[in-house]
């Protein structure tokens, strides 16, 4: 855990981008090594996601990939680079630009037992496919009296990037969270991105899988072929006693930056990466709340009707007696995301805000000796 924590500060910067990677070796299908215990392997998140797709498509012929530019182009963030050469045009399907229809087609194919992974080139584009995601992916299992399953993975980049403008900076988790029957998962590290995507592909439930546009070039340790992570389980990133900070996706790094600062100031916050945005892992969440008795939710989502709003309500409802302080939230401003750098930064949560919020909730502490 400590190693992971130390690694994170570098990740927020651009260290990962500069590192030289033996790319050709990664592009080829990774040959199964005869040596069982390998040295720790590092790669970019986009490569980890690509490995997950590659391995699952190899394992199960029912898995296929559908989306705009996923084939010959290799995916807008390289996540499916070269896969069409290995699996052919029938399994790696380049679609025209028509989110509503290719989403519906993927779901229709899933009803017959295929396991399509449907990529939204940008999560914002999936608003055009909202009806299919809601009424068909989400509800069909129920309305058919349990007859049909819709084992799709709907994945793609979302979140606030670097000056991408309002439409390409959306956090659709708040839109999708109220759809009955759809599961929401947000990956955050190289390791969990691969392990979670593999689990999502194997799941019979429709899973919306959130990747963050700024994390594709994060570098870190990646798991092997059999590393599969539970979709419904939160991850305690840093154990602490003063306050529970619940966060997910890129905000995990913002919080960990703040945590390092807080540590210097003598605070000991607990940081929990939610991972499962629906359903919430209430076991892990409740255990943490009982321990620290204070809650701060840090998210990139909108404050109104967002993930934090839902989590805050659930904690207040079910853990009220465990709390010594009202539930606190740090969310994005309820405005369209601006293009200008300074304005964009002002709409999303910064580490200094997290530090400030923890200080005011926990009270003054004696700083550690330098």
């Amino acid at each position, binding site marked *: 855990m400590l190693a992971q924590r130390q690694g994170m500060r570098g990740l927020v910067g651009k260290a990962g981008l500069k590192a030289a990677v033996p790319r050709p070796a990664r592009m080829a299908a990774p040959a199964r090594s005869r040596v069982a215990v390998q040295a720790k392997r590092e790669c970019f998140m986009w490569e980890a996601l690509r490995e997950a797709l590659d391995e699952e498509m190899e394992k199960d012929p029912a898995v296929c990939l559908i989306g705009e530019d996923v084939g010959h182009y290799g995916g807008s963030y390289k996540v499916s680079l070269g896969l069409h050469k290995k699996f052919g045009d029938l399994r790696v399907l380049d679609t*025209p630009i028509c989110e509503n*229809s290719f989403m519906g087609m993927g779901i229709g194919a*899933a009803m017959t037992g*295929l396991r399509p992974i449907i990529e939204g080139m940008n999560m914002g584009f999936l608003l055009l496919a909202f009806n299919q995601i809601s*009424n068909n992916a989400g509800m069909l299992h129920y309305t058919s009296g349990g007859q049909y399953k819709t084992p799709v993975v709907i994945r793609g980049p979302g979140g606030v990037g670097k000056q991408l403008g309002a439409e390409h900076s959306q956090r659709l988790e708040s839109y999708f969270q109220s759809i009955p029957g759809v599961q929401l998962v947000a990956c955050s590290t190289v390791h969990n991105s691969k392990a979670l995507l593999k689990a999502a592909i194997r799941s019979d439930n429709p899973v919306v899988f959130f990747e963050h546009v700024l994390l594709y070039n994060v570098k870190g340790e990646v798991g092997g072929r059999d590393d599969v992570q539970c979709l419904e389980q939160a991850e305690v990133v840093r154990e602490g006693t003063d306050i529970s900070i619940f966060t997910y996706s890129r905000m995990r790094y913002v919080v960990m930056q703040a945590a390092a600062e807080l540590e210097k100031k003598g605070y000991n916050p607990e940081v929990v990466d939610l991972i499962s945005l629906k359903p919430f892992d209430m076991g892990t969440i409740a255990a943490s709340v009982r321990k620290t008795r204070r809650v701060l939710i840090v998210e990139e989502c909108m404050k109104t009707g967002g993930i934090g709003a839902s989590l805050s309500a659930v904690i207040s409802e079910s853990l009220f007696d465990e709390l010594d302080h009202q539930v606190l939230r740090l969310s994005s401003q309820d405005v369209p995301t601006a293009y200008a750098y300074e304005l964009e930064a002002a709409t999303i949560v910064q580490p200094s805000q997290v530090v400030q919020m923890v200080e005011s909730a926990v009270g003054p502490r004696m700083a550690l000796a330098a």
Partner: protein
Amino acid sequence: MLGHIVHRGLAAGGFVAQHTSVLPALSQRLFASRPSDDKVVSVEVAPFAVHKINAPSRHVETNVGELSEMYKMMYKMRRMEIAADMQYKSKMIRGFCHLYDGQEAVLTGIEAAITKEDSLITSYRDHCHNLTRGGNVANTMAELFGRATGATRGLGGSMHMYNKAQKFYGGNGIVGAQIPLGAGIAFAHKYRKEPNVCVTMYGDGAANQGQKYESMNIAALWEIPCIYVCENNHYGMGTAEWRSAKSPSYYTRGDYIPGIKADGMDVLAVKQVTAYAKQYALEVGPIILELDTYRYHGHSMSDPGSTYHTGFEINFVVLPRNP
């Protein structure tokens, strides 16, 4: 309108007189005689209108046994829908309830041309599809009554009936949203290299949905074995086709996808054109069928239909074409 050229009812005596090549004995022993049930007869149907494809033969081969089965199925559909109408009016059925009476020949003709290995998906007007795909009157009505013994255990209701074992994919309440699903189901047939098609049904109202054109583009590009069936009952809820479609020639609106228009009130014409379309879909790719029909009820039970279905239309256009 094409469909008006030849009108006939299966049960009517006019059946024989209007068609060539029918055995003289047919009219006397239409539904009774078992021994000659499999005797092949040829019936001539009204001409088809075509778009970028040659028309199928107008001579349809059938036999007394098949005609008898078709009639029984259509009669069952009609009686069930009328019963649903009465149960709705006595408040046993609530919510939305879209009836299929008037359009029975469309589904019956399609089912006669395909197998249960072929997939079927339709809109919210799906009670009768449950009948042809493994369900029965009891579990259809039970669903309408909201019972656990219903087709989808009372969870789906009128618009959401399905049968996985017989490849019936519903039952979709959002107008036109079943069209991409149908293309995806047909794609899965191709993916698995199965010699089957997906019949994707929608109405003339849904024919103006963008997702139809989106999915047709993909289906044509990927040569997907999808038969797009436009059940043209001439009204998208209460709005007449000429008020909602610049071109109500729905069979031509696939542009690069060939289309055929047939009389949807003639079960044999539907059977013929569907069999032809299945062959085309498997060999080449998607095709559109426009089946000219009419619903005898309003759009749903909350719509009496009397504001736009005129008495003239019902008496002089519709009733003589009763399938």
